[in-house]
């Protein structure tokens, strides 16, 4: 008996639910009071929310308008083009996961199963079929990538570079009316599709621009430095919404007559230019964190300025600022919601017009909860993937 007792840890460290509760939640009278109040608030909020969601809420407004939320007024007959483009993206995703993230099983399963999980939403039979196909495409891509990781690396990178132009081309179409791919005007793009395109274009184009501006701001050439500083400070000094107003309202007044720039394109350019100014400062922060010794070492090896930047400094600097970059990308994603104010039908814009449908008057809560959920899932997805990337690159450990 005495022997057994001596093996056990001290009383205070022994495991037990009651003991844990006592230690962490009911340590003192104050703790106990706070615990009870907290538990009550959580209970009250959660039951309130669940009761509303399952008994009061009229989710018909979402299920009936699901297509509007997803793609806006994009014509029904042409939807297969978007599915095709998404299939291409899923294939590449599966491929990339198998090649570069062989150990990240959780992320892989989540990403590949995501479309199939979406079938739980009240989609019609046609979208459900496509969603299953998407998941299968992802799995096939993963299988191919898994079997030949070395051989496929380059072609997958090439595929990713090609993916955005291809997505845009498929979305817009290229033959006149009556052809296999009739042109769908950008005025019909909307919903999540528009939010997605604005975000992706904004991120992809603002990133290189931001890096250039950051380098420009650290340049030793006064004109370049001054231009970068003026640009960054000017753009950062105004709210995004004013840039949108400028692009949508003022630009037409300055352009020559009969000269119109596509409204979606204007919004894309505005997002890009705005985000680039912020990214520039983020990247500059990363650049400043690189010790001088790195520059000197590169110099000693005989690398010139450009080589030093590309091979030595930028890879380290960008790796350092991954959390900030992802934060900025998530911000871009959510900031695109502002285009609703200038009359574009992004996710928020389409939500507002759905709310004006006489059949679904007064269902603000349902609609806004639904689109908030979409924003949250996608934002958290980005955040989760970036954390995986950080672990893989060992950002915190080096």
């Amino acid at each position: 008996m005495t022997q057994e007792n001596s093996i056990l840890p001290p009383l205070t460290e022994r495991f037990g639910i009651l003991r844990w509760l006592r230690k962490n939640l009911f340590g003192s009278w104050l703790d106990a009071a706070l615990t009870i109040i907290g538990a009550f608030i959580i209970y009250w909020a959660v039951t309130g929310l669940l009761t509303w969601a399952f008994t009061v809420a009229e989710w018909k407004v979402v299920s009936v308008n699901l297509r509007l939320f997803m793609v806006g007024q994009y014509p029904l007959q042409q939807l297969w083009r978007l599915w095709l483009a998404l299939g291409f993206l899923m294939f590449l995703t599966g491929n990339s996961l198998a090649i570069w993230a062989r150990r990240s099983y959780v992320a892989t399963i989540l990403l590949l199963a995501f479309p199939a999980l979406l079938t739980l939403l009240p989609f019609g039979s046609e979208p459900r079929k496509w969603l299953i196909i998407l998941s299968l495409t992802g799995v096939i891509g993963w299988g191919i990538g898994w079997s030949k990781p070395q051989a496929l690396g380059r072609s997958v990178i090439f595929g990713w570079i090609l993916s955005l132009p291809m997505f845009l081309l498929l979305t817009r179409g290229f033959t006149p009316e009556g052809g296999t791919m009739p042109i769908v005007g950008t005025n019909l793009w909307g919903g999540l599709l528009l939010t997605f395109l604005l975000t992706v274009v904004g991120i992809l184009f603002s990133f290189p621009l931001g890096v250039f501006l950051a380098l420009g701001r650290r340049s030793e050439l006064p004109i370049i430095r001054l231009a970068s500083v003026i640009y960054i400070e000017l753009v950062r000094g105004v709210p995004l919404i004013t840039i949108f107003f400028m692009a949508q309202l003022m630009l037409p007044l300055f352009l020559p007559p009969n000269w119109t720039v596509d409204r979606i394109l204007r919004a894309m350019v505005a997002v890009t230019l705005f985000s680039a100014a912020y990214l520039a400062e983020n990247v500059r922060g990363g650049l400043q964190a690189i010790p001088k010794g790195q520059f000197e070492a590169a110099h000693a090896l005989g690398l010139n300025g450009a080589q030093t930047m590309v091979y030595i400094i930028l890879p380290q600097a960008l790796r350092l600022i991954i959390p900030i970059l992802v934060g900025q990308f998530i911000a871009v994603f959510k900031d695109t919601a502002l285009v609703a104010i200038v009359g574009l039908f992004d996710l928020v814009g389409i939500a507002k017009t759905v709310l004006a449908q006489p059949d679904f008057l007064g269902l603000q809560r349902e609609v806004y909860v639904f689109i908030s959920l979409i924003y949250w899932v996608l934002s958290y997805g980005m955040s989760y993937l970036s954390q995986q990337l950080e672990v893989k690159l060992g950002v915190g450990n080096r």
Partner: protein
Amino acid sequence: MRKTLWIVSLLLVASFVLAACGGASTTGGEPVTVVETVIVEVPAEGAVVAPSGYGVTLETVKARGNLICGVNSQVPGFGYIDADGNFSGIDVDYCRALAAAIFGDANKVEFRPVTAAERFTALQSGEIDVLSRNTTWSLVRDTELGGNFTATTFYDGQGMMVPADSGINSLQDLAGGTVCVQTGTTTELNLADVMSSLGIAYTPAVYEDADSTFAAYAEERCDAVTTDKSGLVSRRTVLADPSAHVILDVTMSKEPLGPMVRHGDDQWFDIAQWTVFAMIAGEEFGITSANVDSVRSSATAPEVMRLLGLEGDMGLKLGLNNDWGYNIIKLVGNYEEVYNRSLGPDTPTYIPRGYNSLYTEGGLLYAPPVR
């Protein structure tokens, strides 16, 4: 060194700004002497305005192959997108009627949702051919903003909403009651004027903003609530049970809403205006989209024959085909059909016709003769 650079750059920026301002005030070749300051909301000088002149707009629209119509997308009954992705509403149907008049195809119209802020700019810069977006006709908008209102398609005005089970059917029934109203607005003054002229005693319950006004009404702190009718319709939507509230058939102020076109193209103005008149005349003569074919084949009244293009070459005078009126009524409907489709008794956005009835029924709708 660094300091001088900063000063130089600041001067540079300042000079750019000055140059830009200078450039704007000297357009036209010679310096402009400012005699008096005129505040213009939309830059009238130096701004690019779409080319206009007699017939230009129709030519552009025909060459493009569709009409671009500036609409609202967020007002129930007036302009919104239905679940199938199609635009609906009374303002939207006007655009369809105009397209039907021009092309004989009500679908040859591209709807461009415009915000309140950008609507006049969009019209001026030629981004849209016509603005049909619950816009109130007023002198400033008819002159300084460079547009012309064509006709009134909806006589909006201050209305009164009461609970359906309250038994209140007219303003007189409100005697001794309480009315929720937003303070510091013309709405409050209109209410006071109308009620005192009718000799009705009431208690105004005033609130700082529209949200609290309607919140108070929802909590039954007053017997009725008042604001513009189209506003009442959309506000009713956020009440717990929208169908439990009705809008009284009274109008206490003038808010004529109608389509607007650019200055400078009288032919386009005529087309836009007579499209409205054709719909009103259609209702007056009892021609609907359902019976228009039989009416046309058996028409004897000269007025009807001219409207439907059987006599008088009326369409050619507008620069259109003679069947323009027939197409409007056949493809979109007469005024009553359009009204009932969006604001009629069978819709959740029901507004009693009131002033929007034909002049023969005590309303203000009156189409000049087609001759």
